[in-house]
């Protein structure tokens, strides 16, 4: 496949796969800008590697895997570059919010978590990954994965089902 054929193929993939890929990115990234960036980066990587795509029928799965790897690489890079020992539980946009009363729906609650915590929840509960698999993917100690999972679950319980917490405290 020559270069222009690669470009044409990736442009076709944008036409056929952009929307489902964007939906996937939105769930991982938590916001429209983050999702747009992830999808854009994914297609730019695809432009480099589209020659490796031997089964066009599986293009969406291949793109999703690429996108997920980019998302995880971004988390690893953030961790290496961060001066903080442990990332914040709350996403940047949620930190200035007044503590919200009432129920949140699942996407709202997940989006309140910072990407580091949201990724652990999505991988453990959504994809059925083990602590070890998550630790390997994020290059974190297994204990850190477990502690993030516990903190995230506790916060999600407060936001999704506060009534069960009220029973606990009574």
């Amino acid at each position, binding site marked *: 496949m020559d270069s222009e054929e690669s470009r044409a193929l*990736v442009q076709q993939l944008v036409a056929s796969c952009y929307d489902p890929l964007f*939906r996937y990115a939105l769930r991982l990234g938590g916001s429209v800008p983050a999702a747009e960036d992830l999808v854009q980066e994914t297609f730019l*990587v695809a432009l480099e590697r589209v020659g490796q795509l031997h089964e066009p029928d599986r293009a969406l799965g291949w793109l999703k895997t690429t996108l997920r790897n980019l998302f995880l690489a971004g988390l690893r890079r953030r961790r290496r*570059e961060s001066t903080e020992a442990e990332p914040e539980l709350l996403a940047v946009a949620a930190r200035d919010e007044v503590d919200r009363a009432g129920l949140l729906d699942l996407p709202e609650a997940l989006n309140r978590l910072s990407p580091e915590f949201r990724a652990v929840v999505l991988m*453990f509960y959504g994809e059925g990954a083990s602590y070890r698999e998550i630790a390997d993917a994020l290059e974190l100690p*297994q204990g850190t994965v*477990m*502690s993030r999972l516990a903190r995230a679950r506790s916060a999600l319980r407060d936001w999704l089902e506060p009534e069960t917490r009220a029973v*606990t405290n009574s």
Partner: protein
Amino acid sequence: MNCGDVRLWLASRPSVADDDAGGVAGEVRREAERHLAWCGDCRDEAARLRDFEVRLKDRLVTWLATDELPHAVAESAGAKARLLSLLESVPMDSAMAAVPSTADSQGRAVLPPSRPATATRSRRVVRRLAIWSIAALVLVGLGTFLLMSRPVRLDRTEVELASLGQAALLREGAAIVPGAWPASLDRRLLRGAVPAVVEVRGRLVEVIQFAFRRRSGVVQGRLLIIPVASLVDRPSGTVYLSGGLRYVDRFAATWWVEGQFAYACCLTTAEEEAFRSLQPRRLAT
């Protein structure tokens, strides 16, 4: 161990449904289990937590499989067009050969102007006229705004966060001040790039999106341009890369001031070599 200790222990376990939670000291675990054997309240709490986890898992699996996000996808329509334009502009092998060998030795190929093969000269002229007209309108609008409105000074982080989010792009093909590009950044990088404008708390920020190749792959970047008077925390650097790197979301950024404008160059990599490769050749040597 009392009830409070056991509730804390339960909450600290990564998954209540996981019998082998690991990481919990054996003695603490045995004490908690002894407590749970006789305390009905704590057993109920453990059951509620387990039930919550089951529901959370079910909801997440269902949500991940759901294929409905029409509003967000609609918001992203502009991004799709920008992506197609960016893909069109990335040089492929033949274009790479045209890049000067000095650029290759730095592991970089600067993007040529975006020129769809089918575009006719007259269409390009019309498009350029349109871009300059919009730019002029924006310039007039900005001047009016600066004169008439109460000055708002922006924090650099809020500028970065707003500008790096593509959804915030207001106008494609617009520039605050056409040609207000920094001298200490390789201008070839910006050749053919289409500027856009975002609004941050009433202030306009110009954003130029670009991409370039390195041996490790394609790097995305954005150049932010903002009148220096708009910033509350003026950058100390006076040339590109003189102010160190900041990290914002998925980007690393360096800020500096040249003349009346503050600039931020943001890349999706923190490799210093990638940043250095964007210096004009005379500065890089």
